[in-house]
C-alpha cells in the first residue's frame, strides 16, 4: 500500500496519452449491462492518434495499441485495462449479466473528503465501485466472474468491493459454478479503515465455502495486485494465472526499501519473479487468456467426480 503514489504516477503516465482508449468499450455490443462511462475528462486530447508506451517509450498509433488489446505491439508491455475492457476481451460476447451494479458502501469513518473522492471516481469510471461482478460464459463455459477496476480509487477494497465479491462467490456456490476473479488493487481502502480490512476475511471465507463445495476458483493477477487483496482472495485460487510483467506483492516497494534499507533486486515482485518463487501457476499473455481460461474450465467440467 506504500506503492500507492508510485502506482498513481504510473497510472497517470498511461492514462494521459491513452485516456479515451482506456475507457472506450472494447465491444460496444456487450456494454448494455454496464453503464457507459460518463467521463467529464473526455477531451479532444483523448482522441490523440499517437500514444507513447510507458514501458519502451515507443510512439505508436493509438489504434495499433487498442487493436492489440492494449498491449504494446513493440515491447509487449501489458497496459492496464478498465473492468469493462477486460470483460470485453475475456467473456463470450453478450453473455455477461451484471449483478449488484448499484451496490455501494457507507462512509464508516466519516472520513473527510471521502464522499467527494467516491463521487469523482464514479464520474471518472462510470462505475459505482471498484469491481464489476456477474455471470458470464468463457468459451461457452459458465462462470461467476469478478473484475476489479484500477481506475476506481486504485482498485482499493472497501466494504462494497468486499461485499460484491462475497456475493458473487456465494452465488457461484449456490449455482455450483466456478469463480474467476481478475485482480488489480492497491489493497484495502484506507478511507474505510478497519471495515476494509475485515473484507479480507469475509471474501476469504466465502471462497473457503466455495472450495469446500468442490468448485473451481481461478485468479488472474493483473498489474498491480498488492496489499490486502494479495493477502486475501488473490492468493487463494486453485489456479493462479498472471499477466506478463504484472506487479504482484504484499508490501509496497518503498515500504520495503525503507524497512530493509537496501534497494530491491531486478524484477522484484513482477509476475515472473513471483512465479519463480512458486506463487503463480502460469503467466499468460492477454490474447491467450480466454483460451487458457476456457481450457482450464473445460478440464474441470466433469460429469463424474471422485472423492
Amino acid at each position, binding site marked *: 500500500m506504500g506503492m500507492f503514489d508510485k502506482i498513481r504516477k504510473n497510472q497517470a503516465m498511461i492514462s494521459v496519452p491513452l485516456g479515451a482508449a482506456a475507457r472506450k468499450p472494447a465491444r460496444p455490443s456487450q456494454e448494455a449491462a454496464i453503464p457507459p462511462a460518463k467521463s467529464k475528462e473526455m477531451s479532444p486530447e483523448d482522441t490523440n492518434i499517437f500514444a507513447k508506451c510507458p514501458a519502451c517509450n515507443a510512439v505508436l498509433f493509438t489504434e495499433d495499441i487498442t487493436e492489440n488489446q492494449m498491449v504494446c505491439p513493440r515491447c509487449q508491455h501489458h497496459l492496464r485495462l478498465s473492468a469493462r475492457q477486460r470483460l470485453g476481451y475475456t467473456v463470450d460476447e453478450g453473455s455477461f449479466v451484471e449483478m449488484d451494479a448499484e451496490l455501494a458502501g457507507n462512509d464508516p469513518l466519516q472520513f473527510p473528503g471521502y464522499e467527494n473522492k467516491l463521487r469523482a471516481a464514479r464520474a471518472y469510471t462510470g462505475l459505482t465501485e471498484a469491481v464489476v461482478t456477474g455471470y458470464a460464459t468463457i468459451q461457452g463455459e459458465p462462470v461467476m466472474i469478478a473484475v476489479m477496476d484500477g481506475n476506481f480509487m486504485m482498485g482499493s477494497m472497501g466494504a462494497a468491493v468486499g461485499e460484491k465479491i462475497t456475493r458473487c462467490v456465494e452465488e457461484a456456490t449456490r449455482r455450483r459454478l466456478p469463480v474467476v476473479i481478475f485482480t488489480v488493487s492497491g489493497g484495502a481502502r484506507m478511507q474505510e479503515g478497519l471495515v476494509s480490512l475485515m473484507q479480507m476475511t469475509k471474501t476469504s*471465507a466465502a471462497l473457503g465455502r466455495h472450495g469446500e463445495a468442490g468448485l473451481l476458483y481461478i485468479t488472474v493477477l493483473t498489474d498491480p495486485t498488492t496489499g490486502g487483496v494479495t493477502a486475501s482472495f488473490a492468493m487463494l485460487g486453485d489456479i493462479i494465472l498472471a499477466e506478463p510483467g504484472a506487479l504482484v506483492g504484499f508490501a509496497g516497494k518503498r515500504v520495503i526499501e525503507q524497512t530493509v534499507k537496501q534497494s530491491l533486486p531486478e524484477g522484484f515482485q513482477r509476475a515472473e519473479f513471483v512465479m519463480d518463487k512458486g506463487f503463480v501457476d502460469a503467466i499468460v499473455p492477454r490474447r491467450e487468456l480466454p483460451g487458457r481460461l476456457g481450457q482450464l474450465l473445460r478440464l474441470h467440467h466433469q460429469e463424474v467426480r471422485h472423492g
Partner: protein
Amino acid sequence: MDEQMTPVSAWERVEHAREAARPTAKTYIDGIFTDFVELHGDRRFGDDQAVIGGIGRLEGRPVTVIAQEKGGDTKEKIARNFGCANPEGYRKSQRLMRQAEKFGRPVLLIVDTQGAYCGIGAEERGQGQAIAENLQLMMQLSVPAVAVLIGEGGSGGALALASANRVAMLENAVYSILSPEGFAAILWKDAARAKEAAGLMRMTAREVYAMGIVEEVIPEPPGGAQEDVQAVAQAMKDFFLRSLEELDAMDTSTLREDRYRRFRRMGDCGLDPQNG
C-alpha cells in the same frame, strides 16, 4: 491538544499500546495458562520467533495457544523481529491450528503486532499467500477460536490471527488497517501527521467496539496494563473462559456458521446508506 471528546485521545492510546513497559504476550501466556509447552517451526522453512505457539491448559483443559511476541529487552526484540512475523510465522500458526483441529482443542490467540514484516525475504516466501491462507483456515476451523488484541493490531498481519469466533481488545490496544504513520504517509504523503490520522481512523478499543468489530473491551488499570498485570491476565482469562463456554455449546457446523456470520455482516452495503 486535539479536540478529542474522550479524556484519552486516540494518539495517547497508540502511545500506550507501544509503551516499552507494556506487557507482551509471554507475560499473559504465563499468567493465563498452566503446563505450557512451546512448539517451534512451520515444518517448511524455519521458526519465526515473532510468533509463539504451543499447547497449555486453560483451567485444566488443553488448548492451543498462538501469540505474537514483540520481545522484552533489545536483544530479544531483535530476535523476535519486534513482533513482525514473516510468512513462517503465519505458517507456524497454520500448522498449530490444524493440529488443534485434529485433537479437538480450542485455539486461543494473543495478537500484538505493528503488521506483517515488509522485507524482501517475506515477499519472496509469499507473505500475502501466507496471510490469505491463515484467514481462510481460521474461517474453516472446526474448533472454537478466540482472540485478544493486547497492544498493536496492525493490518493484515494482525487480522491473520484475529479471524476468530470472538475477539476482544484490551482498553489501550489499537486495531487498524495500517499504522497511523503509514496511513498518513499514504493519504497525505506525510507520516508526521500520524497523530491526526489516529484521531480519524477509529482505531481505539472503544471505537472498534462501537463499529461492531470486537465483542468486548477488557478494562485496564489507570496507567495501563503494566500497573496490574495479574488483574489484566485474569480478565483475559475470564474472556477466554466465557467465550469458550458459549462456543462449546455449538456443534461444528454451528460454530463455523457463527464465525462466517461474524465476518459476513462486516461492512454494511446497500442502496440505503443507513441500513445495508
